[in-house]
Structures are given as C-alpha cells and as structure tokens.
C-alpha cells in the first residue's frame, strides 16, 4: 500500500506561505497514495517556475527540466518506458507560453501522461509580470496600462483539439482536486488538469476569495454530460460570475499514442534488448 508519507522528501518547499502550490502538492500526493502508486513507479517531470520545483519537494523520481519543455521530455520518457506513471507539474508561463506548441501536439498525440498546470495567471518566480492566462486589462510590471491581449483559454484549446481528458481544479478545494487527479491518473490518454493556483505575492486579483465566490463544480450540474464535446466547449468559455471546475470532457474510446506504435506492443522499449543482431543481408539493400 502506498501512503502520503511515502512521498515525503527531506526538502522543505520554498513557496510563499499561503501559496496555491501547497494545495496542489498535497492533492497530488493524496491522489497517488489513494491510487496505490509508489514513489518509484512515478516520474514527475517539471519545467521552470515556482510550481516546477514540486519534484524537489517530493520523494519520487523527478526531472526538473527546461522552461517550457517538460511535455517533450515527458513524451520521450513515456515512449521509452510506458510502464512509468508520468506526471507533469508546471506553470501557465511554462506550459501555455514557452510550451504552447508542445501543448497542442501533446493533445493531438494523446500521449498517456497527467499534465498538471499550476495556473496562477501571473509570473511568480520572475516577480510579477503578466502571463498568457492573465486576463485582458491585467496590470503588471510589464503591462503598466493593463494587458491588451486576450488570455489563453487552455481548456478550450484542449477540447477543440480533441483532448480525451480535460479538467480544471482549484487549489483551495483540495479534496475535489485530489479526486480530479485520481481520475486523471486512471485515464488512458493525455489528461489536462489545469489548476487555479492563487499567487499570494503577485496576483492580487485572482485570490482565494475571488475564486471561492465564483467556482462551481460540474459534477453538481444534474444534466452535465462529460462526453458532449460542444457542451464542454461552451463551459470552457464560461467566465465571470460563475466559473466551472471539475471534469469538462472525457472520452475513453480513443487509442493512446503508444498503443499505436507497433514496437511498443511488445512492452516498454527500455525493457526490450537493444543488443540486437543485425544480419549481414541488410547490406544487400545498398548493393
């Protein structure tokens, strides 16, 4: 049996007191324990940013990579060893700005990883510039008159692009977030878990209170059908007095990328012997 304490590392987080990352971190550990996944069975891949330090604070295999590139690293790790459970934790700047291209392609490949975005709608580690998910009008050190760009809508992108698991959690609702991550861990295919992560130091707009006044759970909606793509798309566009969290969209009948790679049908690549014998006859190809 796996327990939360198994993931306890000797490291102490350097996040600001009250940071939304604590909630995400605790939910992730709880979800792993609930799913009985042990630290050695996991590889947590992150990028650069406050949230990307999560592997350092967690006893599990971890690879803290480059800004914007964890999805590519995770994709390679997964294709070479799909027996490992691969989880990504990175921020909105890392994933939706630097990593935007990789995000789109991970979705369409249906790579079987759990992709958690610590979305605080601001740049934390570089101290307060606007981020791709900052709302239009957001005032920051680099948008002194307010951002004149529309914010990225990652969930809408994911639903439109054919993602098989699209969800959003809130770091202030850890039980609910744990449930979402557990669902994502069970899902076969690319699982997007976008998480509202209040940044107590730099984002004075999107605070815990701000979210608490607005979020509602899709599971509580009596007629909500998570397999209805158009309805899911509509909900991803809902923003204002009511903001949905929960599982927006989930389909189970799509093959994952690795299921369609013939070589991987024999098992994880790194468990296949690479000391292959290449017959001399192959030279005939060049004769």
């Amino acid at each position, binding site marked *: 049996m796996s327990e939360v304490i198994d993931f306890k590392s000797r*490291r102490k987080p350097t996040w600001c007191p009250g940071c939304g990352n604590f909630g995400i971190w605790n939910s992730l550990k709880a979800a792993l324990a609930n799913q009985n996944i*042990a*630290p*050695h*069975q996991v*590889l947590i*891949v992150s990028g*650069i940013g406050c949230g990307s*330090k999560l*592997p*350092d604070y967690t*006893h*599990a*295999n*971890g*690879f*803290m*990579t*480059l800004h914007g*590139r964890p999805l*590519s*690293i*995770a*994709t*390679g*790790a*997964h*294709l*070479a*060893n799909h*027996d*490992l459970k691969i989880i990504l934790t990175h921020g909105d700047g890392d994933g939706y700005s630097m990593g935007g*291209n*990789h995000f*789109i*392609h991970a979705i369409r490949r249906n790579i079987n990883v759990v992709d958690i975005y610590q979305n605080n709608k601001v740049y934390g580690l570089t101290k307060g510039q606007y981020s791709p998910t900052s709302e239009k009008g957001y005032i920051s050190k680099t948008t002194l008159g307010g951002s004149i760009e529309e914010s990225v809508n990652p969930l809408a992108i994911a639903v439109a692009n054919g993602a098989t698991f699209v969800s959003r959690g809130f770091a202030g609702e850890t039980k609910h977030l744990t449930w979402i991550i557990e669902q994502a861990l069970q899902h076969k295919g690319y699982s997007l878990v976008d998480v509202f992560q209040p940044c107590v130091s730099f984002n004075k707009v999107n605070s815990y209170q701000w979210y608490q006044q607005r979020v509602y759970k899709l599971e509580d909606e009596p007629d909500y059908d998570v397999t209805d793509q158009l309805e899911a798309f509509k909900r991803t566009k809902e923003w204002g007095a009511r903001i949905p969290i929960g599982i927006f969209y989930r389909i189970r009948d799509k093959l994952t990328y690795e299921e369609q*790679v*013939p*070589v*991987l049908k*024999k098992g994880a*690549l*790194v468990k*296949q012997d*690479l*000391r*292959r014998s*290449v017959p*001399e006859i*192959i*030279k005939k190809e*060049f*004769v």
Partner: protein
Amino acid sequence: MQVNNMTLIIGGDAGQGVESSGAGFCKALARGGLHVFSVQDHRSRIRGGHNFYVIRTSDQPIVSWTEPVQLVVALTQETVNIHLKKVVPGGAIIYDDEFNIKKEQLENKNVKSIAVPLNKIARDIGGSQVMANTAALGAVAGLTQFPLKYIRSVVKDNFKKKGDKIVEANYKVAREACNYVISQYGTSFDWKLQSVDAPERMVINGNQAISLGALVSGCNFVSAYPMTPGTSIFEWLTAHANQYGIVSKQTEDEIAAICIAIGAAHVGARALVPTSGGGFSLMVEALGLAGMSETPIVIVNAQRPGPSTGFATRTEQADLLFTINASQGEFPRIVLAPGDTEQCFKATARAFNLAEKYQTPVIILTDAFLANSYRTIEKAALDFESVTIDRGQLLTEIELDQLRGDYKRHAFTDNGISARALPGHPKAIFKTTSDEHNEFGEIIEDAETRNKMHQKRMRKLDTALADMTAPILYGPVESEITFICWGSTLAPLKEAVNILNNDKRNMANLLQFMDLWPFPVEKVRPFVAKAGKLISVEGNYTGQLASLIKMTMGLEVDDKILKYDGRTFSPEYILNNLKEML
C-alpha cells in the same frame, strides 16, 4: 581509348529524375564491378532549376571526385551550356535532339555532339516523357559500351513497385536509346565502361552509413524534425523501426526533437537526433540540459551553409566552433567528425558508447557532401562484428537490488562519472535537474556544492581525453607541406596529396582530425612536431580548425585554403589555391 576511368555528369531540372538516375547509375556501375564516387548538386526546390550529379568511376579504388568530365548527359538545354566548359577534349555530350543546340558549338571545343531523341523514345516506346532519364542511361550504355543488363537491373529495382508494365516500358526505352546511339555513333567515343569481376560492393552515402552504425549500435530511439541534409538518417531508421525495435518520432520542432530524445535517454533508451545546423541551433539550450542532467544522447549535425537558412541543399563546414561551444555555461561534450563513409559508421558506433560512458551529449559533425555522396565500399568495410555496445556505468538489476542508503545519481567521483540508475527501481528513486544540484539531484544554491559538482562534471572531459584519437596521417611521415583537415574535405585532399607526391616525392601529407572535442592536444603534438608547412583546408571563411588548434595549442598554421560557396572541394581547387600561395 580509355577503359573504366571516367567522370560523367547527369544534369537537368529538378523533377526530371536527375537524382534517381544518378543514384541508379552509380548502382549499375557498382553491379558491373566498378568503383564510384559521386557528388550531388541540387537546388532547394521540388520542380525546375538546374540539378546535376557527378559520377566518377573506375575499376580501381577511387579516393575522390575530380573536375574534368568526359561525358555529360543533358536532360535540359541549359545543362549543355553550363557543363560544356568542363568537358575534356574528345569528350561528349548526350542531349535531346529537340534542343536548340548547334553541333558546331560543341565540335569547336572538340566535344562530340551526341544528339539522341530521348524524349521521343520515351514518348513513343515508353508511353511517357518522364522516362527520358531512363532513355539517357540507355544512351550512356550505348556510347560507353557498358552492358545494358546492369541498367536493366537498376530499372527493375527502381520501378518494381509500379508494376511489371512500367519496368518493361522503362527497359524498352533504355534499350531503344542504347541501340540508337550504337547505330548512329558507333564506337566513336574514346572512353569505355566494361564490367569487371569484383566482389559485391555497397553503394552507400554518409547518412546511410550513420544509420547502419546506429542500428548496429543498439540505437532504439530517434526523434527529429525534417531538415536537409540530416533527414535521410531519420527516414532510413524509420523505415527499419518496426523490424528492429526502434521508436521513431517526428516532432513539432527541433526543440521537441532533442527534448524527447533526452526524456527517452533519461529512462534508458539509446537516442539519436539527426538534424542540420538550423535545427541544432534550436536545440542548443537542451544540449546544456543533457550536459547538466548527465543524459547520454547522440546528435548528428549534417552541416549546410549558414547563417540562417543559407543554402538549404549545399555543403559547408562552418559549425565546428559553434558545436564545441554551443549552449550557455560550461559542460562536457564530445564532438566527432568522420571524413568518409566508413568513418561515419564507426564514429556512430563510438558515439553511442561514449555518450553512455561519459553520460553526456555526443555530436557527430558531417556535412551535405558527406551525407549525400554515394560511394562504393567493400561490404567488409562496415564490420558489424567489430561493434560492441558499452553502456558505461549503468547499474544492473542486481546492483540496484543491493544498493544501500539513498542513491546518489550525481555522486562525486574521481573520474567524474557516477553510477547511473534508470527511474523505476525502488532502491534508486532519484531526481535530476537543469538547476545546479547536489549528489542526489536536488536543487542547491551554495557555492561549495556548486564548485564540487561543476568540477565533477568537467572532470569527465579530462577522463574522456583517453578515448580521443590522434589525427590520422595520410601520405609520407615527413613532407614539405602538411595539410590539415576535418570531415568531408578528406576525400579531395587525399587526391590532391596523391597528385602532389606523384609529381614530387615527399611533397605533401595530410592530417585528418576526427576527434575534435575534447581536443587531444598531447596526441596531436607529435604529429605537428614533424609537420611541414601547415596548411588548413576547410569549408568555411575563418579556418575554424586552425582557430581550434591555435586556441588549444598556441600553434598558428602557415596558411589556409578555404571555401564557403556551398560547393564541394575538388582536388583541382586545392591544387590551384596551393599554386597561388607557393
């Protein structure tokens, strides 16, 4: 009359099959027991624009291509005008009789005019003008008296996918053109091609040799974004992926290509990333990640002229110093530059072992000339048996089971190399990171650990020196001139050295530098001590190998012969430049 010693050029527009005819004719010659050495010259477009294919052939081993041409096969009128000046007296040009060419234009230069209704034969006999290139090969066979059966066998290989009808039509076209030339021009052409008994040889280019090397070396992961001239490595390995257990992934860009390879290598794959300079530029930050996280990966940078897009389909050797220095900060890397097809195979096998031994990126530097140039080599020259797979200090399952205490992925060691576990074992749960870290791979900020870890990584560079080879000497041990080179320049330079020494004993020798980083200073020293007048021959503007030698040894070369027009070095170019400087 000269038998089995000539150079021909096939020229035409992109889309006319210049490349397939050229490659096909190389194979036909090889099947006839002859050696070939080819150079391709094509533009970055799919249709239109002049392309040509140079094939030197002989019944003796060939060191390089050379400039004088005996026969030009012109699929366009433009080809005649461009290549006429290269044809030696008594040579010939085969062209379509529909072209507006005046016989006298050729004959004034003592070049035979071989007008053949190539297009008409293709249309009338084959049913399609696209077979004009097949007609041209038939015409070459007729003029040189080369047995048509070798053309036929290549035609069969090239068209069997399209069905027997197409194969037969192409063969008829070749035969008709061959017969036409024999009936009209007889045996007037002075250069003949005859088949000779010889062991079966391979016709293979540098990219294919690298691909084979990767296959034999246990490479089981390749990720790339297509970029000329690196692409054909990716395509070849992809074509063999299912049979040999390779995961091949085309990615959204080169940043993803290298990062996916790093991810795969991190968990234990032997990963290869083929690209060219532009793609390598995009990979630079991740190259540092591989260095920092001590992840073994192999990159092939098949160079082309830069900066920026440069010449997409042409050749240059201007990425040497960039490759050695790419990415911020300092970290160990190994750079190998094979100079011929055989060395491409061997360097690739070495690269995978060195990457895992030193747990760091290894870069194989080639260029478009070496990547694309088809040459005959003996089958035994690519010795599969000689390739061993050395995974370095990769912990075995038993060793992992016996681990005590927390596993240190980046343990401090004297030689800089730390025992490597792959993620997945309960006794070796570990982290690594692009941040500076401690032995456990945890992020640190303190100066003392930084120094120790940085020194540990950099020590691998000193350790790796033991595996770096001395320059390879060609020619006499002592000579008036010592050329130095790296990469594909080897071939034309060898030919130039041979020519110089034929004229005057001990005139020149040549040092080929294959292991470029870490630069094996102590192994180079005895060679330069004996060297004559040092002349660096390189495909770049500044003389980057010369700069590297100056930087590492404080030694200045006496002169440089440089080239950066995107075209391949020829022995004649080297000799002409030498003449001007002596």
